């Protein structure tokens, strides 16, 4: 990446986040020269308008696709418009905007193809519920066992990837709960994945997409699709 500076796109998937999205987009636009893309996953509130007024490029999905389908739409946009790096950040204020340079640095320096923000590296104030911590430990074990990646935060949705992964994910990205699965895909591509410590907060507004009721389904679905991806062919 010599000569022209790398083109960077920040992708925010959002569903019913009208209260937090404006502030997030504005702080991204004030702090960084990057394009900000909001993928509105079928919200019925003013998520889309608020983000547009704050200076984001907005993609409106005609129906709710789920988080993976929404993020993938962002990858498609990045691929079609020739971005070099995509940063994916949550729309609910969970992720710290100031940590973006930390996530970008290893990719821009050519030391990694994917950089994932971990809330468990370094000093952490994160305290999750017991089932959530159990789930994270389980997935950590699963990822370490099958890919060899030493991850601490396998469900983190705060990451940056280079254009090769963007292109691959444009065609192969899981519909829901995609982060754990993504490790298998990266492993299959031989991508260099790296974790960096970031801050994460409890959700400011709205509610998490993962309720206790769906936790068991989440575990089963992710485990199954993770293991299937191990033996799948990618054309």
């Amino acid at each position, binding site marked *: 990446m010599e000569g022209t500076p790398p083109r960077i796109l920040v992708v925010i998937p959002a569903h019913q986040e009208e209260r937090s999205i404006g502030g997030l987009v504005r702080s991204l636009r004030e702090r960084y020269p990057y394009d900000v893309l909001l993928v509105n996953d079928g919200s019925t509130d003013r998520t889309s308008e608020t983000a547009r007024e704050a200076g984001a490029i907005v993609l*409106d999905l005609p129906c709710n696709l789920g988080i993976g389908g929404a993020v993938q739409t962002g990858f498609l946009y990045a691929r079609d418009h020739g971005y070099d790096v995509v940063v994916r950040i949550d729309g609910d204020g969970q992720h710290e905007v100031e940590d973006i340079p930390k996530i970008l640095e290893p990719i821009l320096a050519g030391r990694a193809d994917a950089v994932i923000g971990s809330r468990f590296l370094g000093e952490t104030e994160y305290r999750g519920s017991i089932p959530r911590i159990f789930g994270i430990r389980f997935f950590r074990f699963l990822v370490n066992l099958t890919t060899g990646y030493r991850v601490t935060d396998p469900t983190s949705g705060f990451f940056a990837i280079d254009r090769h992964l963007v292109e691959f994910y444009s065609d192969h990205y899981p*519909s829901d709960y995609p982060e754990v699965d993504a490790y298998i895909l990266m492993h299959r591509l031989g991508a260099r994945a790296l974790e960096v410590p970031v801050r994460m907060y409890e959700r400011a507004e709205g509610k998490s997409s993962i309720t206790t009721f769906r936790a068991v389904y989440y575990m089963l679905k992710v485990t199954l699709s993770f293991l299937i991806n191990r033996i799948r062919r990618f054309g």
Partner: protein
Amino acid sequence: MSRVTLFSICASAALLLYILEMVRRRKLREEYSILWLFGSVVILVLSLKQDWLVGIAHAVGIVYPPSFLFLVGILFILLILIHFSIAISKLHQMNKRMAQEIALMKEKAMEGTSGDPSIGP
């Protein structure tokens, strides 16, 4: 001829005719009719050819031959349901890609029009 056999002849013949009629009227696509046609033909033939049914039933260890007919019917239903699950998965994938393309195209269409958010649904 037992009553259950007579019933299964009538039922499978009716099913066969109904499926053929639906395909003829283009209410059922050929690709989704094949398993139904095949299943109803197999049951019809086994109902008409009593000695075949008895022979196969005894060969697989079924004492009461008509229950072999039920087994065949259930197996075809299972196959058809799996076929549907596969078809739904394919439609799901196509639907997702279409929704994504629509979102990308809407954005592209709005690029030149100063992005008036009131346009569109």
